[in-house]
């Protein structure tokens, strides 16, 4: 499987019917030092575009939106004690939540790595 991305800089990695969600390396760099992550409740349902989590950096709070609809089946408890994982390893151990996918076609709408890369390059710094 390969990463898919949203224009809000979330990433999704799909295995079977489970989507792991995090924020991109570009996003963590923009946010700066992450000091707290508010995660969703396991068992809750989210729709695509709903607020899934909140990332607090030293500077400000930023919402993370769910790229897919489904049920939250797991959250990354490591982030509670080590929120800086989001800065250090955004694309892997800094993941936020796993969602059981309701509608697989939502994944198809997301950017692949190449498209996301050019999307980020096109953003004004």
């Amino acid at each position, binding site marked *: 499987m390969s990463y898919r991305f949203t224009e809000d800089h979330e990433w999704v990695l799909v295995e079977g019917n489970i989507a792991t969600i995090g924020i991109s390396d570009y996003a963590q760099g923009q946010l700066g030092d992450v000091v707290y992550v508010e995660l969703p409740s396991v068992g809750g349902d989210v729709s695509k575009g709903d607020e899934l989590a909140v990332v607090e*950096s030293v500077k400000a*709070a930023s919402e993370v939106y769910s790229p897919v609809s489904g049920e939250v089946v797991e959250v990354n408890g490591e982030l509670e004690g080590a929120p800086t994982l989001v800065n250090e390893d955004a694309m892997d151990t800094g993941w936020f939540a796993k969602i059981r996918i309701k509608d697989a076609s939502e994944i198809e709408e997301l950017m692949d790595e190449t498209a996301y890369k050019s999307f980020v390059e096109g953003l004004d710094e």
Partner: protein
Amino acid sequence: MSENPSIKKTVLFDLHVELGAKMVPFAGYDMPVQYPDGILKEHLHTRSAAGLFDVSHMGQLVISGADPAKAIESLIPGDIQSLAPGEMRYSFLTNDKGGILDDLIVTRRGADLFVVVNAACKEQDTALLRDGLRGQAEVTELADRALVALQGPKAAEVLARFAKDVATMPFMTYREMTIAGVPCFVTRSGYTGEDGFELSIPLDQAVTLCRKLLGEAEVKPIGLGARDSLRLEAGLCLYGHDLTEETTPVAAGLLWAISKRRRTEGGFPGAAAIQAEIANKPAMRRVGILPEGRAPAREHTEITDEAGNVIGEITSGGFSPSLEIPIAMGYVPLAFSDVGTKINLLVRGKPRPAMVAKMPFVEQRYYRG
């Protein structure tokens, strides 16, 4: 970010960019919010070594006349007449209701006053001072000088390498001296809670002097992001947030900046309101707040009592890099202002427990001589 033609740059702009700063608009200036190290590291570096801050966006004024100390007391409640030459004091401009129009630092030099005001207020302050002092004193903007702060436990040691006399300057004093060949106005003051200095430098020599300071092993450049978290840990107010036209020095807990003589004599805008508030106690009071858990409570977060009634608001809040917990300050009714009082903070709609706490959150370490 698109180019905003009206945004101003300080003389150190190119140096910030060269150092890799992320620039953001602040009070009409393009300012460094952080350098590549990031806010956390910059903050901790200032607490353990020394940080160099560009504060050239702030206003530097000189007030001269027959008796400028007496004259300015008609506009601010600070006791300026009691200052000896070379001493300085924190004060504020007040309106007729005793609300704070800006906070500022007044230094008595030989015959004149050197005043530093907030960037966002400098035009308004200058106009107010000019109008208010007309016929008694003249207000001159020092547009030809940069202002930088060197803050931290190693600041004195570093600066003394270039001008050994700085080592013995007590907190809140002023001297004119040559630092690495550059004539500076030096004050032992700052906005971090640490020992440190502010240097007013001729514009054309500011970059050279800053490069020399940054060449010292202990010194790193620090952005506005860490400046904000440092001052919050030190319990220091930020104008426009913790202090506004709606807050009085009494509510803000800044009565220490109004001497007994000034409280008794009055003679500044809003004196009657402030005197009445001293006698009757203020309705609201600025307090330190420690949220439970790790979620920071930001500015404008509502404060409730344990029953859920909204009783106040956070005016500054964030994460303390030194303590590794969230910290905040805000205004609550007097009955809720005792240290240890339990309150709730409505963070994203959910009440979270918090407690009124003593400030500063991190001990101030000023050099008293």
